[in-house]
C-alpha cells in the first residue's frame, strides 16, 4: 500500500479514454498508478452507496415475493443471493477504490452545469414527444421535436433548422410507417 507516484492527478483527469490508445509493450499490469487525492477517493463512495443501497433495497423488496417454503429453491433464492453479492462487492469497493486509490481511467471528463441543463431539457422534450406518439401526426411531432432540440443545442443556422427536421421526419415516416407499418 505504499504510495509514491500520483503524477496523473487533476490535469490527467480527462486522460481516461485517450490514454489507453497508446500502445503498451504488453503485460505490465494496467493502472498501477492510482490517484490518491481525497476528492477522487470520496467520490468513489457514490458507487459504493449505489451498490450497497441497491442490495438493501432488493432485500427489502424480496419480502414481498410469495415464499412457498418447501425444499426446492424458491422464487426468493436467486434475488436474495444477488442482493448479498451486491452488498459484499460494495464493501470490497471501499477497500479497493476508496482506501487504496482511484484508477485514472475511472475518472470521467468533467460535467458542466450547462450540459446538465441541456440534458434535463432534452429529457423533458423527449418525454413530451413520447407522450404525443399516437396522438398527433408522427412526422409532425418528429419535425417539431427536431427543431426544438436544435434550438436547445444552440443551432441558429436557418438552413439546418429547416432541412434537418424535414429529412428526419420524412425518413422516419417512410421507414417506420410506410415500410415497416408501425402503428404510430
Amino acid at each position: 500500500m505504499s504510495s509514491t507516484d500520483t503524477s496523473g492527478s487533476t490535469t490527467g483527469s480527462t486522460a481516461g479514454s485517450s490514454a489507453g490508445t497508446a500502445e503498451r509493450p504488453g503485460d505490465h499490469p494496467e493502472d498501477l498508478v492510482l490517484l490518491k487525492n481525497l476528492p477522487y477517493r470520496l467520490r468513489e463512495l457514490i458507487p459504493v452507496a449505489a451498490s450497497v443501497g441497491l442490495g438493501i433495497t432488493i432485500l427489502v423488496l424480496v419480502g414481498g415475493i410469495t415464499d412457498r417454503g418447501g425444499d426446492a429453491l424458491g422464487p426468493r433464492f436467486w434475488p436474495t443471493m444477488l442482493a448479498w453479492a451486491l452488498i459484499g462487492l460494495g464493501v470490497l469497493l471501499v477497500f479497493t477504490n476508496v482506501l487504496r486509490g482511484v484508477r485514472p481511467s475511472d475518472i470521467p471528463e468533467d460535467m458542466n452545469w450547462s450540459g446538465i441543463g441541456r440534458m434535463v431539457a432534452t429529457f423533458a422534450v423527449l418525454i413530451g414527444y413520447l407522450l404525443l406518439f399516437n396522438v398527433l401526426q408522427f412526422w409532425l411531432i418528429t419535425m417539431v421535436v427536431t427543431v426544438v432540440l436544435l434550438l436547445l443545442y444552440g443551432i441558429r443556422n436557418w438552413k439546418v433548422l429547416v432541412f434537418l427536421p424535414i429529412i428526419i421526419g420524412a425518413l422516419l415516416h417512410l421507414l417506420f410507417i410506410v415500410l415497416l407499418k408501425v402503428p404510430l
Partner: protein
Amino acid sequence: MKQRTLMTSAATLAAAGLLLSGCASNSGGGGGGDEFPTEDIRLVVPWAAGGSGDLSARTLAPLLEDELGVSVIVENRPGANGSVGYNWLKEQEPDGYNLSMLGAEVATLQFMDYDIKPADYAFLGKILEGPGAIAVKADSPYETLQDLIDAAKAAPGEITYSSPGVGSVWDNPAQGFQEMAGIELTNVPYDGSAPSIAAAAAGDVDFSIDAMGSQKAQVDGGELRYLAVLADERVEEFPDVPTAAEQGVDLQNASFTGLMAPAGTPDDVVQTLSDAIVAATEDEDYQSVIEQSNLVPVSVPAGEFTEFIQAEEERYGPWIELAKSKQG
C-alpha cells in the same frame, strides 16, 4: 390514426361501393348491422410477431377485409403473457373498430393475479384449435397411458413432465390429468413450447403435454411417441393413437385462438363481425394455412364461443387453484 385519413376515405369509398353491391346478402341481419363498418378496423395481436397466433391473424385479416369491406390493420402488442394487449383492448371504445386476438389465457390469467377477466370482453368467434396430446420419448418404457399412471402411482412425484411455462394453456390439462387419474406428477416449466417438447424428446423429462401439432415434428422424426390424444375422438392422421378417454381418463383439452372486442360492443356489431369471421374461416386458403401449421381450423360464431369461454373458465379455475396450492 390521423395520418390514415386518406386511406380511410379511400376505404370508405370502397366500403360504400361494396355495401351497395353486397347489400342483399348483408341486410338479412337487420337492426342497422349494415351501418357498422365505415372505418378501418384495428386487429391487435397480443403476441410477438411471427408466432402461430400472429400468423392466423395475418392470414385472416385480408379475408375479413373482403367480408367487411374496410381495411383490417394487424398490430402486435405483445407482453406479459398477452395481458398487455388484452388490457389495451379493455380500455378501447366498444364500437367494434378495435379487436384483439385471444387465446385460452383470457380465461386463466385472472387466476395468476392478472387483471384480465372474460367479463370485460365480447367474444366474436373461434378460428382455430390445437388438440392436446401426451407424448413420451420414443424409447420410453411407457407403452400406454395406463403404464404412465401406474408408474406415477408407484412413485408419487417422481414422474416429471415439461410444460411451455407457468400459467400456460397446458398447465391446466396437466393438473386435470393428475386429478382424474389420482396421481402426483412434477412439473418442469420451460420457456415456450419448442424447448419443452425438445426436453421430452431428449429424455430430460418423462413426458410432454402440449398441442399435438407442436409435438408432431418430433413424432415424425422418431424422437417422440404419442400416448394419448386429449380429444373426444381419435385424430384422422394418427388413427392408432387412442384418446385419453379410451384409456380411462376422460380428459379433453385444446388450445384455441379467437377474436374479441371490448365488453359493451352493440349486439348487431358483434353479429356482423361474427358473421364475417365465420365466412372468412370457411375460406379454403385460410384452412390450408392453418392445417399446414398442424392446427385445426374451426368456424365458431360469437354465441357458441362465449358459452365455450365461460365453460373453460369454470373448468380451469379449480385446477389452477389446486396447482397453486401444491407448488413449492
